[in-house]
């Protein structure tokens, strides 16, 4: 594989369920060693896209490539180099934690037993416990151990932390950063779909927001936080005829104005300063706020 080959490359991917366009002409690519966020509301097409990457679904049109390979034609080659944690994890109920890990390891060429022992201890899992007796949090932890021990080049996480308590969520993310990422950073790529964005904020290098199967915005996280800002201004009197052209969105209530900016916050701040506000504040939007403002962001695309 050429070093520049994207780990994931999706080109004009479409998948319909009956009349519904679940994924509609989606393109994105994920470079090696990056953590890529895939954000969208429930039903936006995230899981359908991931299933096309794993050959659990076939695209109607367009292509999905993983490590430069076609997951339909090279299913084993692709799957042996990645691990996948879905939002609903299922194990054979009669197996214990130990049985399950041995079963998962039997499919892998490589299995890091030190990491396995560390994580079992960290998560305080009982190896003799039957999987049918595990809580949802423990099942996810077991799935994460199963995904990290083979030290795959690509970790695909589909809503991994939804429905978990805050402590388990925190441990989950720390484990992805610590146990997974630090092995061989250039060859540790994460593709995570989530709507619990704030928890993954520090991990995300680049992201795509999808809505109704279509790409809404793709950006690097630092660049996005630099570009989208929120200005709050309060005036002594309700301001008349403020010229805020170029703002993404303006909300005014009495003496206060809230403005969303798109790369032009300096310019708008200068304009506001000429009106002598009592208070003027500017902060970046977090990735979660950018996601929530998706409706407004459509204007950016238009």
């Amino acid at each position: 594989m050429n070093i520049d080959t994207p780990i994931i490359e999706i080109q004009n991917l479409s998948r319909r369920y009956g009349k519904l366009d679940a994924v509609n002409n989606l393109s994105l690519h994920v470079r090696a060693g990056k953590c890529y966020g895939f954000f969208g509301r429930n039903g936006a097409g995230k899981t359908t896209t991931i299933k096309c990457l794993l050959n659990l679904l076939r695209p109607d049109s367009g292509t999905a490539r993983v490590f430069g390979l076609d997951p339909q034609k090279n299913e084993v080659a692709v799957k042996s180099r990645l691990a996948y944690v879905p939002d609903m994890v299922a194990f054979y109920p009669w197996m214990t934690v130990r049985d399950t890990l041995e079963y998962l390891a039997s499919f892998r060429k490589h299995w890091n037993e030190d990491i396995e022992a560390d994580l079992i201890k960290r998560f305080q899992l009982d190896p003799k416990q039957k999987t049918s007796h595990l809580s949802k949090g423990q099942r996810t932890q077991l799935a994460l151990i199963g995904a990290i021990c083979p030290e795959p080049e690509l970790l695909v996480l589909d809503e991994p932390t939804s429905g978990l308590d805050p402590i388990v969520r925190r441990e989950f993310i720390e484990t992805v950063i610590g146990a997974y990422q630090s092995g061989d950073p250039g060859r540790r790529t994460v593709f995570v779909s989530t709507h619990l964005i704030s928890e993954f904020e520090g991990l995300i290098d680049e992201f795509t927001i999808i809505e109704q199967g279509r790409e809404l915005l793709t950006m690097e996280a630092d660049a996005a936080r630099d570009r989208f800002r929120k200005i709050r201004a309060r005036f002594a009197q309700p301001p008349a005829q403020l010229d805020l052209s170029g703002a993404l969105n303006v909300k005014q209530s009495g003496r206060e104005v809230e403005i969303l900016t798109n790369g032009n916050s300096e310019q708008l701040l200068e304009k506001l300063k000429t009106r002598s506000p009592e208070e003027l504040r500017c902060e970046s939007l977090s990735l979660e706020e950018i996601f929530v403002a998706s409706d407004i962001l459509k204007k950016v695309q238009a």
Partner: protein
Amino acid sequence: MSVFFMLLQIDFKSGKPVYLQLVDQIRYAAASGGLRTGEPLPSIRPLAEELRVNRNTVAKAYAELESQGVIETVPGKGCFLKESHSPFTKSVRQKILTKEIDEAVVAAHHLQVDRDAFLALVKERLDSFERKVKDNSDND
């Protein structure tokens, strides 16, 4: 875990790239004595886990600090604050102070403390500080 961890705060709302926030805060800690010459910096993995940021972000910050001559990597031992780390330039020091002064200026505005009263207060506090420093050195 060293106390140094607790000094670092990532603010996603500042609009500044996360690795640069780390660079600035570590330089600030070095300039203000929060981190002393020869003291080890936390290694990348625990710091990344603690801050819940990408491991690459911490690595990038450390690489930047190394290229600026603030820290050095001792193979097998980790990263340390360099003995002759370059202190902040005058313009950077002034920039840090400007931020603090701006906050006081805004507070004065809201409390309706006028310009002359504000300047008089600044002078009074400076005199008081200098007296304290002098007293301490006399007692040594």
